[in-house]
């Protein structure tokens, strides 16, 4: 095929491109999945029953804030990474910020408590439920996010996959936080942080396979 022919072909009847179409696709995918993940978590696990207690409410809000920060920051970066060359305009280290913050808070929390409480604070009651629920709830948001990014044109597939995994993990934690009754910062740091990091790692590994275009 002659290159001239190809260019003629591509230039016959060029349709106008909608501005911000890409940001919208990714934004809608993430927002939709967040609502569905929260709905799904509520339907499958139910909301925690002790919200009348102000400490319980405060912990739930703190967990939600942690998850929401991750989703928000990761979404902004993901939208950039979905465009060719976007990796040159992102600093992958921001990914560590929310994790560093929660680990720091957890460490302070532990230091202020007697060491006999440490086991209970870290392990909590339902750590197993937590490490199973977050990755499972994350599967669908992950698939939808990857699909949206694939429609764009990421040129650093590992990094785009990483942030897609982080978004999905964050969305999932958002849903699980409504149910979770383990109220300690070390618990959140270890089990939430760990499972979200796991989703992120899965994204980094699957990115090059799933995002090729």
């Amino acid at each position, binding site marked *: 095929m002659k290159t001239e022919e190809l260019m003629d072909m591509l*230039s*016959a009847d060029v349709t106008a*491109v909608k*501005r911000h179409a890409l940001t919208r696709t990714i934004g809608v995918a993430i927002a939709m999945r967040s609502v569905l993940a929260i709905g799904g978590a509520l339907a499958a696990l139910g909301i925690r029953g002790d919200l009348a207690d102000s400490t319980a409410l405060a912990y739930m809000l703190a967990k939600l804030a942690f998850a929401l920060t991750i989703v928000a920051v990761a979404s902004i970066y993901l939208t950039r990474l979905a465009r*060719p060359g976007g990796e040159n305009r992102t600093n992958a280290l921001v990914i560590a910020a929310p994790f560093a913050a929660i680990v720091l808070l957890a460490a302070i929390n532990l230091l202020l408590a007697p060491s006999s409480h440490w086991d209970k604070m870290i392990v909590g009651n339902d750590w197993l439920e937590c490490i199973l629920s977050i990755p499972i709830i994350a599967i669908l948001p992950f698939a939808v996010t990857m699909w949206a990014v694939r429609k764009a044109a990421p040129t650093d597939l590992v990094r785009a996959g990483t942030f897609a995994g982080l978004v999905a993990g964050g969305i999932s934690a958002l849903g699980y936080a409504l149910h979770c009754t383990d109220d300690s910062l070390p618990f959140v740091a270890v089990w939430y942080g760990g499972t979200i990091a796991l989703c992120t790692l899965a994204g980094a590994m699957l990115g090059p396979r799933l995002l090729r275009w």
Partner: protein
Amino acid sequence: MTTQEIELKALMLASLNGEAASHRMLLDRLSRHLRAYYKRKLVRVGRSQEEAEDLVQEALLAIHLKRHTYDTGTLLTPWVHAIARYKLIDYLRRTRASGSELPIEAAEEFTAFDDHVAVESTYDIGRLLAQLPIKARQAIEGVKLEGKTVAETAARYGMSESGVKINIHRGLKVLAALIRQESRG
């Protein structure tokens, strides 16, 4: 900012607004840059320059199909360069003979020009089109190859006008995928 960036970006903005002539001119100018870029790179990794045209066409298709990912608030040349580089790495991986990793510099001047006009890739457009779903093929042949209007093509094949447009877009995507498969190993 170079005059080249300013000119190319102006063409891109017009093309995003649906101006076919600007789109054609943009592709034409970019094809020369792409050709120079790929020839240089292929030589550097010890491959034949003959392969350059396949890559030029693959990159042009990608630029066309992914033009919605260009953020108009940024420079155009880095966007084009990122696509060109991505397609090169993807191509080298797919067609790699040995297991060696090939370093491609991340940032480089994207200014060289290659005016070799009568160039052809190894792809056979007829054979590629024959592999498309029937409606996509009809839409592309009508509008893109025979130069009929969308309305004429729609009437001839009993599709709606938006159906023709959707089928063209789908068909070009399949075409891009077929080209990637074709150059595999």
